[in-house]
């Protein structure tokens, strides 16, 4: 039994051993740990090399024999003998492994990069998303009305169109190019149940011309000089699902904010020629009020025909260009009944009732102050009964109006009025007396808190054959205060014209408009005027009659343009 003991060898001796092993063809298998094992010696899977040594001679043998003892070389000893470096094959293997790992890492990075690039490409900038979706969430439109108005005869009276004014009597030949509407209509509907509308519109800036002190010794002129400027016409939110659970009312809305008044805009569309002239009640009441309304059609039957169209609401006493001063509110309601059903808004025969009740826009302390005649503190009522028929190419309507305290000198002279009616003095001295008395008379007859109005209107239009021309007209008979037996401010209003439809967006018209005071000229007895609160100024004591009280009529020839989209 040979003595088996471990032998420690030096680095030098191991180098020699390695050289031997290389000669023997074992080196390739030593470090790979997959070495083949010789019959009794060689490399094992653990990396150790088992040999045999003759202690007496120091010879190494690969096979056991007499006098030989096992001689084991550990991997660490071999590594040390090779100067700490693994064999070349191992290094190559390591390099390959590192390269493969690096390539895998590179592929991973490349893959991640491609994914990132794809994600980046898929990212839509916020502004792009905003722009892309904006068109489906908002609509911007505009309306523009302009005219050239020529007055063969001027006079005092109501406005023929909003924003236009003519001088008083004796200014025949006056003419002006006017802009009467310049809307920028913006509708936002980010959700399908709420709509926000913002509509600025121009108005003519008029007012006093006092200069402004600018420093201790200087001043600058007033800029309130007649500019066209913009104001808010409409600004409201509309909830369109207020009755979504009721099929007949599913198109109805709740509207909150500064919005169209229930009658005037509706009637303007019924008439179709608002760009030419005002509808009757618009001379008394504004077309826009801050308020809350319920409105819409009531549709019935399988074809969902409109049988009723309504607009009911509560509003400020002050309209859209006035401060609200009152502690009361104004109620208005319009109900249109279509007995045979309407396929669209005005289709066929309709019967419309409008009622408005409110009070003067004054503060509560003024309203409650004692007054013989309430004047501007009075209750105000307006009623309209309209029977109308509308077809595709023609339409006709008759309107009866009744009002209470609904026609003040402010309405009467909205187009032009005597200077005295506005607290100014005419620059023609000879006219001061007559104008003072006349202005006082107008105030007494029309602003005494007990006035009643009546109006009769016939209006319509018809397409002339297969042409782009439409004949239209409006005849109005207005009784300014029926409590006055013969009221010098009663008038006829006549509008007749022809319209040319240029295309879907543009119409032009040429027309005549007249305010005709039809009573024979007469002198108004002071005693009769005093029944209505007329106060004779002390400097005119002894005057018994107010002379020539019937105003001069107004004639106007207009050319109008409408551009709307």
């Amino acid at each position, binding site marked *: 039994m040979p003595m088996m003991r471990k032998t420690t060898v030096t680095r030098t001796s191991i180098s020699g051993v390695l050289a031997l092993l290389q000669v023997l063809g074992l080196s390739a298998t030593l470090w790979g740990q997959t070495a083949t094992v010789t019959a009794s010696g060689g490399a094992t899977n653990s990396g150790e090399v088992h040999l045999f040594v003759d202690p007496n001679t120091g010879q190494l043998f690969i096979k056991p024999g007499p006098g030989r003892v096992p001689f084991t070389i550990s991997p660490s000893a071999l590594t040390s003998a090779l100067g700490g470096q693994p064999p070349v094959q191992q290094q190559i293997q390591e390099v390959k492994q590192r390269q493969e790992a690096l390539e895998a890492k590179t592929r991973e990075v490349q893959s991640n990069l491609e994914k990132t690039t794809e994600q980046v490409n898929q990212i839509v900038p916020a502004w792009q998303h905003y722009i892309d979706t904006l068109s489906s969430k908002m609509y911007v439109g505009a309306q523009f009305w302009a005219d050239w108005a020529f007055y063969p005869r001027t006079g005092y009276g109501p406005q023929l169109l909003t924003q236009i004014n003519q001088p008083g009597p004796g200014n025949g030949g006056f003419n002006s190019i006017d802009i009467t509407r310049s809307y920028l209509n913006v509708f936002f509907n980010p959700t399908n149940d709420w709509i926000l509308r913002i509509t600025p519109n121009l108005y003519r800036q008029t007012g006093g011309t006092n200069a402004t002190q600018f420093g201790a010794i200087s001043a600058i002129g007033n800029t309130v000089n007649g500019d066209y400027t913009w104001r808010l016409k409409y600004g409201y939110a509309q909830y369109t699902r207020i009755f979504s659970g009721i099929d007949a009312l599913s198109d109805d809305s709740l509207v909150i904010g500064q919005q169209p008044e229930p009658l005037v805009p509706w009637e303007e569309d019924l008439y179709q020629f608002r760009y030419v002239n005002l509808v009757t009640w618009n001379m008394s009441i504004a077309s826009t009020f801050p308020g809350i309304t319920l409105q819409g059609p009531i549709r019935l039957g399988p074809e969902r025909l409109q049988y009723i169209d309504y607009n009911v609401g509560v509003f400020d006493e002050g309209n859209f260009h006035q401060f609200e001063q009152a502690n009361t509110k104004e109620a208005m309601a319009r109900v249109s009944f279509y007995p045979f059903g309407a396929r669209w*808004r005005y289709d066929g025969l309709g019967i419309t009732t409008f009622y408005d009740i409110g009070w003067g826009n004054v503060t509560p302390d003024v309203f409650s102050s004692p007054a013989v005649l309430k004047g501007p503190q009075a209750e105000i009522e307006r009623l309209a009964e309209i*029977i109308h028929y509308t077809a595709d190419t023609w339409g006709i309507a008759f309107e009866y109006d009744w009002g209470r305290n609904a026609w003040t000198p402010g309405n009467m002279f909205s187009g032009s009025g005597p200077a005295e009616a506005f607290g100014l003095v005419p620059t023609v001295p000879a006219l001061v007396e007559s104008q003072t008395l006349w202005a006082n008379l107008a105030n007494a007859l029309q602003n005494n808190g007990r006035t009643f109005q009546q109006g009769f209107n016939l209006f319509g239009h018809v397409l002339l054959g297969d042409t782009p021309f439409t004949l239209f007209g409006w005849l109005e008979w207005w009784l300014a205060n029926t409590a006055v*037996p013969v009221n010098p401010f009663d008038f006829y209003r006549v509008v007749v014209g022809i319209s040319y439809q240029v295309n879907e967006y543009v119409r032009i018209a040429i027309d005549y408009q007249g305010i005709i005071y039809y009573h*024979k*000229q007469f002198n108004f007895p002071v005693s009769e005027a005093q029944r209505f609160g007329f106060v004779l100024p002390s400097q005119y004591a002894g005057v018994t009659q107010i002379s020539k009280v019937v105003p001069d009529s107004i004639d106007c020839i207009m050319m109008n343009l409408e551009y*709307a989209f």
Partner: protein
Amino acid sequence: MESSMYREKESWTFRALSNSIRYIRMGERAETVKLGVVVGTSLFLLATLAGCATTKAQIASSDPPKSARIADNDPPPDVRHCALVTISSPVLYACNGKVYTEHQLSQRRLAMKQKKEPSNDHKQQAGQPPSFQGNSPKS
């Protein structure tokens, strides 16, 4: 003077109505007569227009189905033959019982016009070759 000239131009209708109202205001039965005039006038117009409405109802069966919805597949109506529904943004028109925006009417009219009138380019391709062919463009 001007007033008298205008009075001569007043129509007999207005004069008659004016005189009637003056009588009404001064008469003892003012309220009753006033109401009668209003009701009578309204009934007259209602009866007149109702006649038209009845006629419409009789021919309604040959009309296209009643609908106030916007239709996209019908031939384009002419805006001149349409009623104005609302002067808003956009303006809406009603034609044959259907409601269209002005944009729809405009687009359909233009599309129809293009179909009827081929463009100049198209005519040129079908006829003579372009005159500049073979020549270098001049700036």
